[in-house]
């Protein structure tokens, strides 16, 4: 087509499925990360590198056996809390702040209000028996040992790549689990570049006592990791909204998206938690020379990601740093017909005379200048793979649709002002209803009738 008529940027396979976080069992990490990897494989990504679960154990032999009295808080007089005087400190490092827990004697004391662990250790244990016992309970091996006076620093590592073993052995009563193992997946190569994304499970960006999927996305320019091309993000698995968190994932060779299936926001919790992400290295014309590689990681609360065609997140052009500017996110343009809005009523649903909806390219724009805060700095950066815009919007509970005799997944809808009768800025500038859809080929999708 000579004009920019609807032309799907096809990347096959294109898969969708769900991942369920069971919130009634602590063994959720391995199974959900495994489901994530399976989904990525189904969408054309491959295993890229080994990721072993690993923790560091700082053992002060001089203080063993484990503390018999919980230490006092230095800052809050009379408050019992853990401090670094503990005999045993376990540190787990993911993509955010390191996560530390301290040892105590669960047989003798009520757990203090701090991070600690119970691992079956008793006051009869010696440093040597503790090290072995810890390795057994975690199904890990000691791969490195450093000794500095009475302090031993040991690195424990899983015996196999992937999510770590059941972390309850060191979880104690705290919410944190410390697998920090996971999978590293690689996209297919596009224009000589590819993405790799590692998924772990840990406390995430909010820190201890939380539970999240932690991700690290890297852009490989010309096959090698590009400088400044790493971006971390996380999806929150708590607080629990129900006993299950059901995620929708859609994957194709150069991009994937994941969000809480059927949900739009987290208003039920009263606190916004990031529960949606869209990672892509978008399509550009064959002869395009405006940039070498562009990638984005859109991650934000569902209220933004799922309800508008403007996605907050991080963008990356060529060798520059990731932009974290909120206004340097991604815009998906859509057709309009209104000049102003002076007619109360529902927003426009642009159709033909037969009521047929208009399907258009899912163009995306982003600001190349990472410091930009202005929309005016946005330019076209590509087109979403397997995606289109449709000039109508839908509730987040709408998951599937059939268009052109193929199944599509509803990604997001512009419904910020669902009613033009509402006061406010829509008066200035009319907007059609619009939504983004992703064509899928396999997975838990209803076949078109």
């Amino acid at each position, binding site marked *: 087509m000579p*004009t920019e008529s609807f032309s799907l940027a096809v990347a096959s396979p294109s898969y969708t499925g769900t991942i369920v976080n069971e919130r009634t069992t602590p063994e959720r990490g391995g199974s959900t990360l495994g489901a994530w990897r399976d989904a990525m494989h189904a969408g054309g990504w491959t295993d890229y590198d080994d990721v072993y679960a690993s923790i560091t154990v700082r053992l002060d032999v001089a203080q063993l056996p484990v503390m018999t009295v919980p230490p006092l808080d230095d800052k809050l007089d009379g408050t019992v809390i853990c401090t670094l005087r503990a005999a045993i400190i376990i540190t787990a490092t993911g993509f955010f702040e390191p996560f530390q827990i301290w040892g105590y004697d669960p047989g003798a004391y009520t757990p203090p209000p701090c991070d600690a662990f119970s691992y079956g250790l008793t006051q009869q244990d010696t440093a040597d028996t503790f090290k072995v016992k810890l390795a057994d309970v975690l199904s890990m091996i000691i791969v490195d040992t450093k000794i500095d006076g009475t302090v031993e620093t040991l690195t424990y590592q899983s015996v196999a790549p992937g999510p770590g073993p059941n972390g309850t052995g060191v979880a104690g009563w705290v919410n944190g689990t410390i697998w920090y193992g996971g999978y590293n997946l690689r996209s297919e190569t596009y224009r000589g570049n590819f993405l790799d994304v590692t998924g772990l499970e840990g406390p995430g960006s909010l820190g201890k006592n939380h539970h999240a999927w932690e991700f690290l996305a890297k852009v490989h320019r010309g096959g090698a990791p590009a400088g400044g091309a790493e971006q971390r993000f996380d999806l929150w698995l708590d607080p629990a909204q129900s006993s299950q968190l059901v995620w929708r994932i859609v994957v194709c060779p150069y991009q994937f998206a994941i969000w809480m299936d059927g949900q739009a926001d987290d208003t039920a919790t009263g606190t916004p938690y990031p529960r949606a992400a869209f990672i892509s290295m978008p399509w550009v014309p064959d002869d395009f020379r405006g940039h070498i590689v562009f990638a984005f990681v859109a991650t934000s609360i569902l209220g933004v990601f799922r309800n508008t065609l*403007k996605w907050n997140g991080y963008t990356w052009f060529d060798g520059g740093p990731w932009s974290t500017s909120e206004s340097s996110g991604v815009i998906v343009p859509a057709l*309009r017909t209104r000049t102003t809005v*002076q*007619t109360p009523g529902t927003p*426009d649903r642009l159709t033909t005379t*037969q009521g047929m909806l208009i399907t258009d390219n899912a163009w995306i724009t982003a600001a190349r200048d990472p410091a930009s805060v202005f929309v005016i700095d*946005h330019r076209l950066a590509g087109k979403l793979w397997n995606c289109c815009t449709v000039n109508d919007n839908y509730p987040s509970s709408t998951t599937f649709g059939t268009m052109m005799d193929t199944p599509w997944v509803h990604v997001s809808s512009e419904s910020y002002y669902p009613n033009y009768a509402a006061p406010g800025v829509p008066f200035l500038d009319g907007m*059609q209803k619009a939504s983004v859809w992703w064509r899928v080929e396999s997975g838990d999708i209803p076949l078109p009738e």
Partner: protein
Amino acid sequence: MGVAYSPPDKVIHADLDASSSHCLRQGLHIAVQKAGWVIDREITNGFVYILISPQDASLQCKVQIQDTGRQIFPFFSPILDVMFMDIEEVNKSPLYALHHTSPSYGAPTRRMRAHITPCQIFTYVPGVTHNANSVMGGIPFIDPNALDSTIDLCADEVNDLKTARAWWSCSDLSTADYDWGVPSFRTSWHAGCSATLHNNTFVIEPRAFPDDSARLRIPVMQRPQHFLESYGNVNSDYPVILRWTGTDQPLCFDPFVAWSDTHPVKIRGQLWDAIYRTQYVSWESPLTFDYLLWFSYSTGERQYNGGAPHLYSTGDIFTLYLRDPGLTHFECDAPEPEPPTESNYAY
């Protein structure tokens, strides 16, 4: 859908002698016939023509071009009346005005241009907007799935909404008072004074001051509403975002035409031999696209940084291009002109 191309030999870019009523009518008469318009009948100081869509001969409308001796403000300058109507002459557009002769508009050497295809016309004077220089209209290209004559009906389509006939028209001067200039596709993506017909629904809009109830328009790309809410008018020249990173190259789109008597407007079809690009250029700028030559028909203010963005401007939102086969010069009382010697057709 891609560009709706008319047969190459039926695309006429006419350079017309508009120094008098006689000369302008004569030039138009020859030019429209070269584009395939059929004479329906001669009337006093004018003709009624039948336009037939190359897509489907059942899609027809009529255009009447006549000098009734009417003059309009300012300067009581003389005009030709152009009227679009259905084949039964029941639903008729207002009388759109085309200036000629007036010293205020270039007489005695005044010239006018017209881009004419078998079922569509756009008139203009280079470098000029408004003031009875731009009249446009025709039968749009219809989505083949929506054509009434389509026999292979889809079971899940609303077939009673098939298109049996359709035409659109607008001009750059209000037909309510013949005083105020109004947006047309020469200056904007929506029309302030228009008349349209789809099947049996006729909508006429003679407004002098268009607002959102103006009926006829070309749907264009924009960012989501959410952005204006976030950033207001500071960044209201948003269409720049629809150019490629680094190269600053715009996108090219099919110019759908949409109208309704109330919102939401419905897409009725597509302009023939036209594209729109997401970049401002000045009037009559040339373009090579799809191995053909084109010229920019629309123009407008480059930016608009306050109030309701782009209400009266085309500029950065888009530029409407028409396919340019090269100018054919129609001189008054001269032998019928030859077509351009260098054709740009790639066929």
